[in-house]
């Protein structure tokens, strides 16, 4: 049964699916959802959807968006994806101030902590850097081309983040590696000095995030295809603790519902005080909460928040200004749905903070649709429709498709000896030699 679900779309040669993404403004001003080529932004202060203005001459997104992020200051927002475009937006006006063309598809994007640079990673594992120009048009320099600053040798970079102090840039790839590189004062010359490699994952690394207890002490948390969440001393490349989500899921769901391939960690999100980590798991309809003890350097299971069976979040976000955890689910390129109507489902968890756990009844909980901030207005803007929850079978197909596309993109194909020989014989690299 499980096997069929994985095999079928592969046979039909279906397109790649991109998961829906969510990002929250660090001060809680707005929230953004990306689904396929569409970017939906809702202004939480004013309580209305934002219409994006894109008049800086570049194209708008035409293919799935793979990465979105707010800058630490909240002043800027970046989006990038399969159409090889990286767009940088000003969040006060939601105007696109820069469109950068990449040579390859973009898999990760991040804005430097000082808002001076935008950095993006392409499918070949190269990280590029572009200076963000000032708003005034005269600053437009002709040679404002992306500069390669570092690279993971031919490995898709799945996640990229700056350390809270801005000294390091961390990159995770599908070859189990996390690289922590010093971000130099003049990064346009390249980031050549590697601080450490965080090695321990036994499958692709899908997400990394920094979390800190004080201004000068922070840690790295990562999640991966080996269904573990790991806590790192990233300065020294030391693994501090490993949480096996698989074991826990086995206890919770019973062994028959868990198989290796379907319990990859899809996203992690720390709470703003650093004491909690929310974990999204590929086949789990809900969120797992881990207690993150940064003093004792331990990750431990706290609780799960289950949601309706058809809801399996694909992306998580929280902002430092609020106690809300935003979760979203959806996929682009669904064959079964009209292209004009990209389905996403949004759920919000309140009280995403540790001290709220002890108070008996007001712990983290999922908001009903009616209780969501700005109610239907927000849901309509970000989900695209109000009755998404009722379209169970569509949501189910979304899930199956996502599982396949993630597997296809990040997991190495394993062929039997025989099949490998056969493929070798059939390959066309002989043409390259003359």
């Amino acid at each position, binding site marked *: 049964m499980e096997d069929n679900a994985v095999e079928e779309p592969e046979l039909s040669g279906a397109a790649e699916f991109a998961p829906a993404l969510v990002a929250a403004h660090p001060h809680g001003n707005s929230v953004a959802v990306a689904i396929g080529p569409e970017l939906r932004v809702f202004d939480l202060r004013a309580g209305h959807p934002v219409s994006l203005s894109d008049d800086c001459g570049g194209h708008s997104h035409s293919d799935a968006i793979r990465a979105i992020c707010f800058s630490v200051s909240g002043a800027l927002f970046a989006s990038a994806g399969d159409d090889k475009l990286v767009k940088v937006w000003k969040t006060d006006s939601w105007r696109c101030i820069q469109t950068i063309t990449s040579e390859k598809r973009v898999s990760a994007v991040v804005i430097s902590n000082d808002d001076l640079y935008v950095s993006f990673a392409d499918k*070949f594992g*190269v990280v590029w850097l572009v200076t963000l120009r000032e708003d005034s048009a005269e600053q437009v320099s002709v040679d404002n081309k992306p500069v390669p600053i570092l*690279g993971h040798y031919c490995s898709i970079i799945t996640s990229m983040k700056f350390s809270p102090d801005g000294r390091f840039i961390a990159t995770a790839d599908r070859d189990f590696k996390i690289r922590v590189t010093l971000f130099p004062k003049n990064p346009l010359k390249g980031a050549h*000095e590697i601080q450490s490699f965080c090695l321990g994952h036994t499958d692709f690394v899908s997400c990394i995030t920094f979390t800190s207890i004080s201004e000068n002490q922070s840690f790295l948390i990562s999640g991966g295809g080996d269904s573990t969440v790991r806590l790192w001393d990233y300065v020294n490349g030391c693994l501090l603790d490993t949480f096996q989500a698989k074991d826990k899921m086995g206890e919770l769901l019973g062994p028959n519902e868990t198989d290796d391939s379907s319990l990859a960690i899809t996203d992690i999100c720390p709470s703003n005080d650093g004491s909690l980590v929310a974990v999204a798991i590929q086949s789990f309809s809900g969120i797992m909460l881990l207690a993150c003890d940064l003093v004792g350097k331990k990750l431990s299971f706290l609780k799960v928040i289950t949601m309706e069976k058809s809801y399996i979040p694909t992306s998580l976000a929280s902002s430092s200004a609020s106690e809300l955890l935003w979760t979203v689910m959806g996929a682009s390129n669904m064959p079964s749905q009209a292209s004009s109507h990209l389905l996403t489902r949004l759920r919000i968890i309140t009280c995403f903070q540790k001290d709220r756990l002890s108070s008996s009844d007001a712990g983290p909980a999922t908001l009903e649709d009616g209780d969501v901030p700005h109610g239907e207005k927000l849901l309509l803007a970000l989900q695209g429709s109000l009755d998404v929850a009722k379209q169970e079978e569509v949501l189910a197909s979304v899930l199956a498709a996502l599982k396949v596309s993630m597997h296809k993109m990040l997991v190495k194909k394993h062929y039997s000896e025989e099949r490998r020989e056969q493929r070798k014989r059939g390959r066309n690299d002989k043409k390259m030699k003359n």
Partner: protein
Amino acid sequence: MTRTNDASGGGKLPRKRFYRARAHSNPLSDSHFPVPISPEEVDLSQHYPRYFPADKGSDGEEAAAPQQIRFADVGCGFGGLLVGLSPLFPDTLMIGMELRDKVTEYVKERILALRGANPGQYDNISVVRTNSMKYIPNYFRKAQLTKMFFLFPDPHFKEKNHRRRVISMQLLDEYAYVMEVGGIIYTITDVEELGEWMRSCLEKHPLFETVPEEEIKADPVFKLLSTATEESQKVARNGGQTFYAIFRRISLQEE
């Protein structure tokens, strides 16, 4: 591991003709051989049984000071350099890294045969099959290596294939990471274009500086570069020219 007891242990050198391999291997393709998750998982007892006797270590009696691999010959081919270096640095552990399976097998057999024929020698060299363009940090810790060798690498002439070259700005970052400050990186080739490329990469890289010519000439290793390896002997036979670039790992000075 059981190979230690093979018939070839009798000191008979393996014959190259039985290890015929392709001249090239694609470094970009997915690898299907086992790779250690981290340097802690590299099993030295498998490579250097005399220095790291299997099983014995756990019984209290720790073997001398825990040694680390110090030299890496990336793309070691048939292992000529390792065999040449072994008696020069008898107390230094060194490893050859080679992507081609059959060539690695040959070097393994060759080392075992040499150990068999010369008891007490060649215990400090070994070989591993791996893709060093992808997995260098899986084998070595930060600042672990004192010498790295890149002798006669694939030239990859076409511009489209330049990213397959084993020396590039990107990969030098990783080599610099595993090398200690003061460590030396040796490159040599008989292809002028590649020689220039490797030199210019190293010159541009902020973590390497050129080693003065007189120092190079005084380095006993330098002579081996153009004489010890099978590839260099071939070049010499054909009266070809070689181009070397030898650089030192330095620490970064930020103004």
